[in-house]
């Protein structure tokens, strides 16, 4: 389950490049190529750089004209879709 404190990362078989404002993603294990639009690409780049979800939301709120609450719902849904699609995975929290 994803919440605002979750940290995610691209799966091992995923390679990606930002092309202009878009992102091209290869899922090597599945022979799949995916494309993300401008906002999706920005979010994916933030997540791939290691930002936790709430940190990524902070950045997007500053960059796009959107209310935080609305954005947070959309971001969570989008990231859940990327997890389901095998593009990203949850980094398990460190054990105490």
């Amino acid at each position: 389950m994803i919440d605002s404190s979750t940290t995610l990362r691209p799966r091992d078989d995923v390679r990606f490049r930002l092309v202009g404002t878009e992102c091209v993603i290869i899922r090597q294990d599945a022979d799949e190529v995916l494309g993300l639009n401008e906002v999706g690409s920005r979010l994916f780049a933030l997540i791939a750089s290691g930002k936790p979800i709430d940190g990524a939301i902070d950045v997007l709120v500053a960059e796009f004209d959107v209310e935080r609450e609305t954005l947070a719902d959309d971001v969570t849904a989008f990231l859940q879709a990327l997890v389901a699609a095998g593009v990203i995975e949850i980094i398990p929290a460190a054990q105490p």
Partner: protein
Amino acid sequence: MSFGARFLVEPGRVAALLDGPACGGDEVTIGFADAAYRFTGLSGPQAAAIGRRYGILCDPPREVPVVSARVAHAPAAQFVVIDTRGWTLDLDLDYAPTRVRFASHGFAGAIDPASVEPGVLVVRDGDDESFLGALENFFRVAVAYRHLNAGGVLLHSAGLVDEGAAFVFFGPSGIGKSTLTGRGAKSGRAVLSDELNALRRVQGRDGPRIVVDQLPFAGDFGSVGVRDASFPVQGLFRLRQAATCDVTPLSPGQAVGMMLSCAPFVNGDPHRAGRLLDTLTLVCDTTPVRALSVSLDGDIWPLLRSTNGNA
């Protein structure tokens, strides 16, 4: 399923298989697209068969071989017997940082993706009939990596030359590349290949541009070609089947993604994915990539000319 298990009786011993004895002492060098490929360890009949198949491209006068490969043989019993009726070629590829291995019906091989160490192709004893097919499959993989190393890319595509400039139409099998090529040939346009063409970025007088090199690999249309057959690319189009002919723009991300899916062999290699993405991004930065919808009876050429005039 482990690498080679579908095609090799002892897939765990593939290293020993690839270390097999040479077929003979002959060698042939084939030159095209700014590179030369030397095959050693050939039997006399194998060398003669290559000479007949690749004709004018054999034994280039000047080029230094940039890729070499040894041809070896192994007992037929080491290859799985497959009923090939209705079978289409299926290559089992195994990617590693310093080598790419492959196996298929009656042959196996390995290449150094950096084109530094010689590759090896192992064919079945007593199967001269399939030798050229095995060699060509090895050759395609080797050429794909050689082009990637040189900053280029092979595309599953049809290439046609109209008034000195090339148009490259890419897309998956069954999308209409051969149909388009056949129509182009009928209307007098030169055919590069209806199956595989090589793109690379070169520095021109007015800045970088994309050229297409003819390859000696074709399906129903195209030929061995001529040495150094290279043409400036006037248009790069992703084919679509439709009721009417139309050209529509693609975003850079769409263009890269669509070209990526048509870059054979290397697009499944996790160790070279970054290089391939960079190469395709440069191609798309250099020349527009568009979608071309083609109808069964439509003439695309007036449309292409007007589109490129407005590029």
